């Protein structure tokens, strides 16, 4: 029981508190690459704090969907964060938390986000929603195939057993199957978190925006919730990537609270490295045309599929 409470506290607290930091780091890297000083790393916390204090303006013509969506999106993001453990040293008592649940709980949040964007009847919202629908439909097969392939090797579809299994694998990144899945998931993360080759997170009021276009009508507390949810979702995906393919818990070798602390510190370092990687990708690429995104999605799907095939033909 105490394990369960600890798991709850560590998961929610860690993920919610650390999520805006990742955005700050990526923005800082971009600023430094342009020889600007840039906003402080903690800027997003200040923004969220300010937004939470403001009242939100709601359009008269919008329905209840518009008002309820920020809470649904935030709740689904936190629920997804509960499924993906930041460290495997704390055991959740239950063994649920399928990869399929993970993918579709995030899809539920996205579905409501698209509905809300259509709800106010603004043109930008409709554009953003249709683009988001296209991108998510394209990227979904790839994430499912890659996660289920790892699940096949680990002989479980729940995230926690998969992660504990990955702790026993020596150097997953030089294993042919995991390497393919890793490449596929990198593309998935970039598309899911609306990063540069797919969508530009720093644009506001620009014709090419996707994620921003859906948030355009929101203000105040609702906007803060939506932005925090997006940051949490990003951290969930990064956690999935680093904990699956850079396992570290077997390195510690001891148990108890101290081990958990060390494990969390190493986890933060890994997230920092991943943020660095995403920042570098963002600096070095340009945004793709909307109709070039299927190329990227096809690439990601095929890589995950070949990973599956390698497992099938040669064994894990």
């Amino acid at each position: 029981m105490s394990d369960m409470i600890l798991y709850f506290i560590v998961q929610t607290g860690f993920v919610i508190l650390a999520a805006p930091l990742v955005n700050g780091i990526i923005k800082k890297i971009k600023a430094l690459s342009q020889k600007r000083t840039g906003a402080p790393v903690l800027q997003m916390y200040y923004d969220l704090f300010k937004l939470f204090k403001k009242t939100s303006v709601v359009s008269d013509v919008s329905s209840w969907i518009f008002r309820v969506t920020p809470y649904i999106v935030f709740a689904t993001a936190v629920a997804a964060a509960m499924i993906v453990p930041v460290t495997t040293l704390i055991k959740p008592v239950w063994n649920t938390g399928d990869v399929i649940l993970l993918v579709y709980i995030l899809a539920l949040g996205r579905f409501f986000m698209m509905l809300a964007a259509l709800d106010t009847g603004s043109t930008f919202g409709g554009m953003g929603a249709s683009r988001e629908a296209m991108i998510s439909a394209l990227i979904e097969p790839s994430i499912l195939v890659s996660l289920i392939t790892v699940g096949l090797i680990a002989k479980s579809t729940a995230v926690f057993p998969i992660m504990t299994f990955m702790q026993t694998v020596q150097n997953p990144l030089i294993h042919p199957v995991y390497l393919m899945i890793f490449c596929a998931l990198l593309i998935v993360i970039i598309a899911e978190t609306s990063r540069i080759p797919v969508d530009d997170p720093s644009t506001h009021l620009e014709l090419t925006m996707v994620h921003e276009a859906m948030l355009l009508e929101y203000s105040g507390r609702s906007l803060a919730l939506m932005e925090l949810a997006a940051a949490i979702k990003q951290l969930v995906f990064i956690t999935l990537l680093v904990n699956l393919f850079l396992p570290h818990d077997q390195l510690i070798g001891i148990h108890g609270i101290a081990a958990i602390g060390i494990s969390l510190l190493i986890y933060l370092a890994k997230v920092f490295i991943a943020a660095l990687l995403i920042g570098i990708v963002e600096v070095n690429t340009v945004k793709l045309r909307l109709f070039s995104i299927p190329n990227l999605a096809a690439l990601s799907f095929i890589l995950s599929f070949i990973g599956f095939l390698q497992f099938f033909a040669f064994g894990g």
Partner: protein
Amino acid sequence: MTNYLDALSVLLLVSAFILMGNKRIGSYIKTFQFQSALVALLTGIIGISSFAQDGRIDVLIICAVVIGIKVLFIPYLLKKTYAKVAYRVEKDFFLNIPILVLICCLMVVFSYFSFAETMGINTGTINNQIVNSFSVILIGLLFMISRKKAIGQIVGFLVIENGIFVTALFATHGMPFIVDMGILMDILVAVIIMGIMVFRIDEKFGSINVDNIKDLRG
């Protein structure tokens, strides 16, 4: 060492796929350079192990030559040609890119299952490294026939050559020195000639779309 070779063969396949998903000439050249760097790394690993085991240094020499020719000189040559001709992005294909990538996937499936019939696929030196590098050859072939512009076709040719080189390397862990050197020199001369040809075609017809060359027929 086998682990690292496995990983490198997978990365080679990934780079071939990235090449297939691209349509900018600049990215073609960059991806080819990356792939050649992987080939050089792979040759280096095999070279070091053959030096440690038998005291042979010929694979290491080949590694140096690969770095010189494929990683540095040919991309430089292609970039020079690319700067002279007018276009930057390839616009028309025979099939669109997602379908091409799917066809590539089918070819990889084909090579997996045709090689899976081979005796001892999981025992000796023949394993998924061979399958991956063979897939690189097939993808290079498809890349060559799917691109209409001449530089794309040169890059496709070079990818096929990379695939053949790596397949030979995986199968034998070091071909006879003279054979490897002969192939590399052939490639070098072929690329130089093709580069000049592309420039000439561009000068003569105002574009390097190979469809226009059909007009030469009497």
